[in-house]
């Protein structure tokens, strides 16, 4: 994987120009335009195919409850992929941390506790989950940055480790009966907006700020495109990698909390199909799997596209296996298009101008 010649798109022309122009933005990033078009096409197709079930308030509100978990996991996957790695352990972290939270909320609470006490335990559970998520992420980061194991192996191993730990803790059983206040996070709405959606929006905003407005984002992208150059450029690669995996663990634990709030139970093997879907979303969103490049707008559009597709297929009463088939085709197709289009552009440019552009 690592030794495949990385095909990169040319340097982004609009990168150091602070003024914003829609035309330049669209033309400089063909992928975002393409993604937007795909999203609209999927939306329109699904609307035409099943207007009565797809284009209703009910279906939209159920979508708004469904996609945030995948969305938050995709953000975690995106960060690690921009750093040139991958995080296969996000679902493991999500399950492990949410089980910890559920245990605090269900098992530790004394009998007949007042609403206030059980609220305190709920907060304690959430804090525990988030700390555990960061610790899990730091373990990944330590193994990647300090010991030097390839990220895919680290997270492959830690996925087994975290999931195994979750199974050991629960002995394979589900933990049920979370406090009502907590499940209202998963199923409630705040001023008409579903709470999971609000959490997703907050995560998106935080990651956006980190990636685009903080030095960390720049360092991460430099590290992802060329780790040697970034080290010689005075960037502490170890710290950046540790931060990245810790953030990924943090986001995964948030996703886990939303997940158990939605289902009102926690189990060691929930949502394992999310790993593939998160990779699909991130790649569809135009993040370079070899690292160094990725836009959050792309990831958000990709997750919406997938949700439209998924809900639309549900409305058509298509089985889950058929969805797997579609996921696979979409992923491959997007990869092929992303690989071919820069080459075509390059050829066109070379043919169009007599002088070489480099």
């Amino acid at each position, binding site marked *: 994987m690592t030794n*495949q010649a990385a095909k990169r798109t040319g340097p982004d022309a609009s990168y150091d120009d602070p003024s914003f122009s829609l035309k330049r933005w669209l033309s400089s990033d063909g992928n975002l335009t393409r993604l937007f078009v795909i999203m609209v096409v999927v939306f329109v197709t699904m609307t035409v195919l099943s207007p009565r079930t797809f284009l209703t308030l009910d279906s939209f509100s159920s979508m708004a409850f469904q996609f945030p978990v995948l969305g938050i996991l995709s953000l975690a996957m995106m960060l690690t992929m921009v750093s040139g790695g991958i995080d296969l352990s996000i679902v493991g972290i999500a399950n492990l941390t949410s089980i910890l939270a559920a245990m605090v909320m269900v098992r530790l609470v004394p009998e007949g506790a007042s609403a206030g006490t059980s609220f305190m335990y709920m907060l304690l559970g959430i804090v525990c989950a988030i700390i555990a998520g960061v610790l899990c992420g730091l373990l990944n980061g330590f193994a990647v940055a300090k010991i*030097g194991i390839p990220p895919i192996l680290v997270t492959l191993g830690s996925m087994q480790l975290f999931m195994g730990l979750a199974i*050991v803790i629960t002995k394979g059983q589900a933990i049920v009966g979370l406090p009502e206040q907590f499940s209202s996070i998963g199923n409630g709405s705040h001023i008409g907006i579903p709470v999971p959606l609000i959490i997703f929006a907050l995560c998106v905003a935080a990651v956006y700020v980190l990636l685009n407005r903080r030095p960390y984002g720049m360092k991460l992208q430099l590290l992802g495109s060329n780790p040697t150059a970034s080290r010689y450029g005075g960037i502490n690669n170890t710290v950046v990698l540790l931060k990245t995996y810790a953030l990924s663990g943090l986001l995964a634990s948030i996703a886990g909390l939303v997940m158990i709030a939605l289902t009102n139970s926690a189990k060691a093997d929930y949502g394992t199909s999310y790993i593939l879907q998160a990779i699909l979303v991130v790649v569809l969103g135009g993040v370079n799997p070899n690292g160094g490049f990725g836009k959050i707008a792309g990831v958000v559009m990709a997750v919406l596209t997938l949700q439209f597709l998924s809900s639309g297929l549900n409305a058509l009463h298509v089985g889950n296996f058929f969805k797997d088939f579609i996921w696979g085709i979409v992923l491959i197709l997007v990869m092929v298009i992303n690989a071919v289009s820069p080459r075509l552009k390059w050829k066109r440019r070379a043919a169009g101008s007599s002088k070489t552009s480099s």
Partner: protein
Amino acid sequence: MRKWTKTSEFYVAIIILVLFAAIGSQNGAFFSSANMFDLIRSSIVPGIFVICTMMVIISGGIDVSFPAIATFSMFSATKIILMLDFDVPVFAAFLLAGIIGLGLGLINGLLIAFFKLPTLIVTLGTSSMFSGFLLTFVGSRQISNLPAPLEQFGKTQVIKFTTDAGITVGLPMSVLITAAVVILVAIMMKYTMIGRGIYTLGGDPVSAERIGFNTRFLQCFVYGFVGFLAGIAGMIQTTMMRSSNPVDLLGTELLIIAAVVLGGVRITGGHGTVTGALLGLLLIVTIQNSLILVGIPSYWQRFVIGALILIGTGVAAYQIKRSSAKQSSILT
């Protein structure tokens, strides 16, 4: 010169011996021939899978689609044979499954070789595609009325004897297929130009191209061949289970990769041996089958395997880091 005591195979072998001794001292039943045969029997199908994964990883890629390919080939081959409705020889059934697998593997190979896509993501995608297609369009219900020759093949045993305790133990015919595959691939990787080319490709694709290897052909060959082997392995699974279940093998890919990596095959490509991969498999299979014999509940399996992967790869990565540090200190 690397001494053989410094190879990772040596360390894995020591770990396995220690594990054997530990389990054996706790429970005498471990060394019984029934248990040993059980270990071999449960490595027949994964044995072919580790060989597949080893080849792919040596070539510098990673393949998570082989269980999907195996399932797809075995299930559709069984269906086709049942539809033909006459007793095709066992050989033809295996060949058919192999050819279906070859076709699917070539899809991977072409995508990887001609579009230069990351192997993990391509195979994740095709894996989801193949199993989705199989379960939607070919069928999702288990086939238990196998054609007679396959049924017969599954029942035939190579070695069979009755132990003192009166338990009859034996190995199915298919163990010979796995043995043949192992030997064939070992010879191919070591003594043929294609095998050496695969090592070179994994070590450095640019150098491989410059010294005249056709890297595109090599990649297509690796993924096609692996697809072929996966198809065969799927058919073995069918004959061993005496039924064709379309969800049987799915989800085994990560454990197989773990086995290969534990056996000292470097995930960055270019390094690894058949012996190492098989030792890694033995380690995993022993943990899976025998932890329960020493009184460790089976739900610890995943945890132990995950810890082993991290420790095993960590030690290997640390060694590489140290040796490269040593080299650079000599140079400067």
